């Protein structure tokens, strides 16, 4: 059974997956990410660890979508602001395929577990789609923050102006009111 293999080799596969993901950071940073274990001194490495482990475990026990989202969020939320191309930001999900191939490839071939592998990989694909959703949410949040911030910065002024000159507040930001 592929599932047994995945369970037995859990640490090896997850480690390899982490390794591949950490490989997307500059070499000087990789060691820091790998060795500093204090979650507050190294939040990035810690989030990657927790995120990938959580995802893997939930893949094995067919966790629900909320759980997947929660763990994906840990990793994607960071990568969404680290200046990566979208593909790089969410593509780490596919690296699991690579890790499985490397660690379990031989065993899969020997036991002819191709069908199970196909099913497992389909799950990984779904995970990738899910991670794209989360990525987009994060990006939207960023833009939302931008607009919020600009509004907050002068919130009182706008409010006061509206009050004083009798403008309905919802007009304050539109082109018509400026003209």
């Amino acid at each position, binding site marked *: 059974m592929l599932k047994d293999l995945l369970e037995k080799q859990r640490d090896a596969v997850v480690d390899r997956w982490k390794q591949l993901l950490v490989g997307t950071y500059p*070499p*000087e*940073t*990789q*060691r*820091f990410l790998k*060795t*500093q*274990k*204090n979650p507050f*001194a190294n939040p990035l490495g810690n989030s990657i660890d927790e995120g990938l482990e959580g995802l893997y475990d939930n893949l094995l026990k067919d966790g629900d979508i909320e759980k997947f989202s929660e763990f994906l969020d840990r990793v994607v939320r960071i990568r969404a602001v680290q200046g990566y191309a979208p593909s790089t930001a969410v593509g780490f999900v596919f690296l699991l395929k690579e890790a499985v191939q490397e660690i379990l490839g031989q065993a899969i071939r020997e036991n002819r577990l191709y069908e199970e592998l196909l099913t497992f990989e389909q799950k990984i694909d779904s995970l990738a789609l899910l991670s794209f959703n989360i990525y987009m949410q994060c990006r939207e949040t960023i833009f939302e923050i931008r607009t919020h911030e600009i509004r907050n910065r002068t919130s009182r002024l706008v409010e006061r102006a509206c009050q004083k000159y009798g403008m309905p507040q919802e007009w304050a930001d539109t082109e018509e009111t400026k003209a």
Partner: protein
Amino acid sequence: MNAWTSLFASLIAVIALVLVALFGVGAIGLDTLFGVVIPYIAIAVFVVGIIYRILEWAKVPVPFRIPTTCGQGKSLPWIKADNLESPYNTWGVIGRMALEVFLFRSLFRNTKAELREGPNVTYGSAKWLWLGGIAFHYAFLTIVLRHIRFFVEPIPSFVELLSSVDGFFQLLVPTVFLTDIALLAAATFLFLRRVFLPQLRYISLAADFFPLLLILGIAISGVLMRNVWKVDLLMVKQLAVGLFTLHPTVPAGISSIFYVHLFLVCVLLVYFPFSKLMHAGGVFLSPTRNTANVNRMERYVNPWNYPVKVHSYAEYEDDFREKMKEAGIPVDKE
């Protein structure tokens, strides 16, 4: 030039220095040059160089009091102020500096116990830097002090005491000094750390590898001379005392390994004032550590303080007077 090039360049430089001494003394017999002239030059450069560098710093004023406060500052009487981390008087500053200089307080901050995955509380890797650093510096200091036995006659009792404590375990003959091992181990650790930690390798310059390798060279030649290729200590001391009594003599036949050791020491002395090794003097002058956190309490003068262009109230009122009056804000000129 990347870190590897720097590393190899430094290594080659140190090896070349060893060869120069071996060749100079062993092959062409320049004992006097290596035993007298170079040591005198080195001591002179060391002393003058360090004083020069310190005066260079001293010439530059500290325009502002800028302590990095690492604890509660002095404010209300019922709030406990931390005089060592945020000093509010001279004693606090002295205490803070002493902790910094003698115990490497700031480096030690790295070393809190931390909770790792799993049930065990363990220490983070950073404590090794503190440990390596402090072992290195104290071992070096002890070794220098121990060497006084070669420099003076009669030997002061504190030096004898130091040697007997250092050789406490009386392992092997001649007794192996603990500080020799500590220095070798610490310097090796600091060196390997630079080579194998990618982050640290990335920031390392030849100027970082060279002094470490040089000191390792000094330590290794010293240990070899003591425990393997023996030298005649009577002659060594004769040479050293000769230097320090200003009656230089060069006894014939001191083995080349001694001159290698001495020459590397001389290079270190000459290199010292012009390199990062000046941190030894600089640490005392660092304004973020040696200024007290009393900025609002006591006057501090910047010697080059100069008048700047400001937008005065009068100009400001001129800009807005009418509007201010309209809004009922008091104005100076009606």
